[in-house]
């Protein structure tokens, strides 16, 4: 492989930064008021004082809950290399109690170089876990249980949570349970007896403010001065970024993005898209890159589906819409065909197709989820007799038809009346 050009090199550098949560979240968590320092304080005091704690990290998706926790855990593993072990579970994978116990036992065995037996029963595993908790407590080792998608563990009898939290009610054990959930009411899901044993430390992760995001943007994209780039390139690159941030058009792009979703994760995705579109010859980021990134972030699949429909399909959609306007809330293929025929009869359109062709178009629409069956019942009936629903609203249909390449004018008129 040849030598990397400066453009490729900077591309790799920035992509590497974007994929490294510690690089992203370190500047966001510097202040003593941040979740990072509070969380670190609690977990590290639990380790040094040898006590048990349980906490919840709450916040919308993409706000960096797991990333901040990883930062904290990484720091603590460095600080106390011998006395921290981390067990990670995910609610989507281990919401079944039996399976969760097995997984915990397995990870504990891995951690302590023991042989794990797949045959072990639920009882064995739970006894093993309790014995391990005790042994680790005696050896001044703290076990951190990270329960991602915490709300999923709160289904059923919550046996796992109960056993963990109940085992933590003894002096010998030394464990921290960290639940991560995007459901704000996650602690309300717990059963009373589980909730009573839970320590109820809550950390709320909110989307960062606009200023923080602007700072993050510069932090992520500006190249360091002393990293082997040609000297002119670095200053040109950084100047370009500076220019961009003061450009009003760029500000508008960011505003549109943050209007929809202001979490860190979506911002990172956006930058990643833009950086990937960078022109390798000039090696600089341009406004067009960000524009393209925005449009790829905010796609409108339904609108595009309408735009790609054939004329016959548009006819069918318009017929269905007309039926809905006529307050005929339920319709199937037969009634749509009736309407189609009526339109043809009254307006003498040139596009008239046979019923079997229309049925194919109809099926096609359903496969693309522009329409769907109204209810799951009646699967014995063939498709044409089952009730259908339009999944697309009138304004979307209207907008889609306007931007359609060859939409007959009569259809637009039909839609309005």
């Amino acid at each position: 492989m040849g030598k990397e050009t400066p453009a490729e090199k900077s591309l790799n550098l920035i992509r590497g930064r974007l994929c490294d949560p510690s690089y992203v979240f370190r500047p966001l968590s510097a202040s003593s008021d941040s979740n990072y320092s509070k969380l670190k304080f609690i977990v590290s005091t639990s380790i040094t004082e040898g006590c048990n704690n349980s906490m919840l990290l709450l916040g919308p998706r993409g706000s960096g809950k797991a990333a901040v926790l990883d930062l904290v855990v990484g720091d603590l593993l460095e600080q106390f290399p011998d006395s921290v072990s981390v067990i990670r579970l995910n609610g989507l994978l281990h919401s079944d109690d039996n399976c969760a116990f097995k997984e915990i036992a397995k990870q504990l065995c891995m951690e302590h170089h023991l042989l794990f037996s797949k045959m072990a029963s639920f009882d064995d595993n739970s006894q093993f876990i309790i014995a391990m908790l005790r042994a680790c407590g005696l050896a001044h080792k703290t076990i951190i249980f990270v329960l991602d998608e915490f709300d999923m563990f709160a289904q059923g009898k919550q046996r796992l949570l109960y056993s963990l939290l109940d085992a933590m009610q003894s002096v010998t054990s030394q464990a921290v349970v960290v639940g991560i959930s995007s459901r704000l009411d996650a602690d309300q899901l717990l059963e009373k007896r589980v909730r009573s044993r839970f320590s109820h430390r809550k950390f709320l992760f909110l989307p960062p403010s606009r200023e923080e995001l602007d700072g993050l943007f510069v932090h992520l994209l500006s190249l360091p001065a002393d990293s082997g780039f040609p000297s002119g390139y670095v200053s040109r690159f950084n100047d370009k970024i500076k220019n961009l941030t003061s450009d009003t058009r760029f500000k508008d792009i960011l505003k549109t993005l943050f209007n929809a979703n202001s979490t860190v994760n979506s911002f990172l995705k956006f930058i990643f898209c833009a950086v990937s579109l960078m022109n390798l010859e000039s090696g600089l980021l341009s406004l067009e890159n960000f524009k393209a990134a925005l449009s790829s972030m905010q796609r409108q699949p339904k609108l595009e589906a309408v735009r790609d429909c054939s004329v016959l399909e548009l006819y069918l959609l318009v017929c269905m819409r007309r039926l809905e306007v006529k307050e005929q809330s339920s319709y199937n293929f037969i009634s749509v065909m009736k309407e189609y025929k009526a339109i043809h009869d009254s307006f003498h359109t040139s596009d008239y197709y046979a019923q079997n062709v229309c049925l194919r178009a109809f099926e096609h629409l359903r496969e693309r989820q522009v329409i769907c069956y109204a209810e799951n019942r009646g699967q014995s009936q063939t498709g044409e007799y089952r009730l259908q629903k339009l999944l697309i609203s009138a304004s979307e249909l209207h907008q889609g038809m306007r931007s359609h390449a060859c939409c007959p004018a009569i259809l637009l008129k039909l839609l309005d009346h």
Partner: protein
Amino acid sequence: MAATPSSKAKTFQSPNKTPTNMYRKSYLSPSSTSLTPQTPETLTPLRRSSRHVSRKIDLGNDPIDLPGRESIQEINLTPRKRTTDVVAETLTTPKTKKKKKIDVEASFSPISPNRSETITKKKKKKKRVYYNKVEFDETEFEIGDHVYVKRREDANSDEEEEDPEIEDCQICFKSDTNIIMIECDDCLGGFHLNCLKPPLTDVPKGDWICQFCVVHKPPPLQGKKLAKRTMREKLLSGDLWAARIEKLWKQEVVDGGCVYWIRARWYIIPEETVSGRQRHNLKRELYLTNDFADIEMECVLRHCFVKCPMEFSKASNDGDDVFLCEYEYDVHCHSFKRLAQLVDGDSDSDQEWNGGKEKEIDSDDEEESVCADSKSKRGLTGVNTKGRIFGVEKVGTKRIPEHVRCYKKNELEKAKATLLLATRPKSLPCRSKEMEEITAFIKGSILDDQCLGRCMYIHGVPGTGKTISVLSVMKNLKAEVEAGSVSPYCFVEINGLKLASPENIYSVIYEALSGHHVGWKKALLFLNERFAEGKRIGKENEKPCILLIDELDLLVTRNQSVLYNILDWPTKPNSRLVVLGIANTMDLPEKLLPRISSRMGIQRLCFGPYNHMQLQEIISTRLKGINAFEKTAIEFASRKVAAVSGDARRALEICRRAAEVADYRLKNNNKTAKSQLVIMADVEVAIQEMFQAPHIQVMKSVSKLSKIFLTAMVHELYKTGIAETSFDRVATTVSSLCLTHGEAFPGWDILLKIGCDLGECKIVLCEPGEKHRLQKLQLNFPSDDVAFALKDNKDFPWLANYL
């Protein structure tokens, strides 16, 4: 079988092979680098002052317990005589070993384990008589005692001459007992108070370090000192061993005599561990090992005293031979672990474990135990299918972390520790009435000669002390059993939530009663025989059985047969079964089938929620002696909890959280630390965090379109009066809102995504997004909350018009 002993011998030898020079290095290093940690505050001052006081007592009044020079010699000399005439053939004492020229690799160890094995094999037929207490050379040795053990041949020479019990002053080299002596915390040397320059009149508080250690110079005249080393010095320099007596027995020898043996569990000094002396090790610290050896009584010199830190700080009766032991050292894995019984505070489990161990060896199948040992060593560990767990004992730290030992807790941290849910309180305030009732119930049931089975249902909301009350009643009862006023019983504790399935309770009960694990159907059969027909299980004698079932409601199956069976047994004439059921719901018996509720619902005990006075009392009894909380803060917390749930756990957690908040606040800005106490504001923060749902904060900080979305939903709700709307309608409202106020409408698909994001946080309840236009939506919180959150919004002041 041969493999294990030889490996044992090696571990014995290894510390010897690296003799003094290695340990010297590590031994001196702390003082030379002056990194010696502070000894924990509570330990030393008490300890020192007690030492010289105790010495006076020892010397004056109690010559037996701590013999003077003569009596020690007696001990040392008499066994040696006996050795020559009785034990000569058994070749076990270190002395005879060399004479007979038998080449044993572990010639330094007091006995070679190899030999002890052969002996036990030879003598397998011979009778062994086990004792709990043995009088040997006018000294009593009991199981659990700590003793010095001879280590090697050459060490004997100076032992014989003298064993100075009273150490000399390091300055005047006299042992005048009338003058108070002070101990240096670094070199452990003794100093007369008036020999010091300048002389001290009183024992100072805190750590005291002698003048020699201050300048890192060894005290003068080492040679003289070496000649007169005390046993303590020898032990700490590795010339003696300390051991705990695990077992005592008398064994007949071929020619008719008998020899006393002990099974010793070795202690090890920090220098002999793999990690060497660690900075935080105290001078008198020892580690308990998991290494056992059978040795003859002859090797035992005399008693020493190994104490846990708590007792060590209060040690009063034992002069120089006191040692501290807090950790256990695994000689195979070279790892440390805290001593379990110290941490738990009660030795229940330990006793049981001892019992099991003894049985195993009594039945003379040592081979089996050795096999099991070697198996676990080979690495066949982890979760075993037979329900036995191997390998857990392997867990341990390679080094004891420093932060544990050298850390001085401040008041707030002490408060946090006592407020932990895990810390068992010394007393249970506010539940004496209930406890009396439980005690009366249990006593009434088991003291009856008939012991008619009975059943009691205990209910109450979580965190009102149900389980702990029952357990403490049982503990008191156990003390009474030991005292002899109550006949013995067996106690089985089961938690419904910890069972894999309700039926498993049979096997758990059966296992608890008999020690064997069987499937639940078989167990049910046996239990039916036991309780309904009165057949005994195995060797079990006529003991009443108390069954505590926590979380009873979890045992309710569809046909409720489990509950029926368990509650039916007590009604049988010969069952001698007492069932205590604990659950949260008050009306559990009423919810069950009538045939069950009639068996269970007769005797009930309700644990009501605590009121604020009680909560306050609970918290303040825990915090007794720790000045960390403002009084009003405690009252505020307890009133708040009492108003919501009356859950003691919750109140304790709030206080602990408040202490954490205060701790964090003080540690972050130490310059403005006005009050070191937990104040109202901290409690307020903790309560906010615990009770307030975070949705308002989230609503305030969501993206702009989400705010418009929420506004549209509220608007829709006001307009129609129906909570549930469809995405179709909300989107139309959003687009009209955007249109009238000059915002860009993002398009339906993006709006759908925004709605789904809100749905994921459960601010909005919604159907999956694939239903698109038909998706049904509903606010998860009262519309007032949304209005409150969005009213004074700077970006969109017009939102308030629609709320």
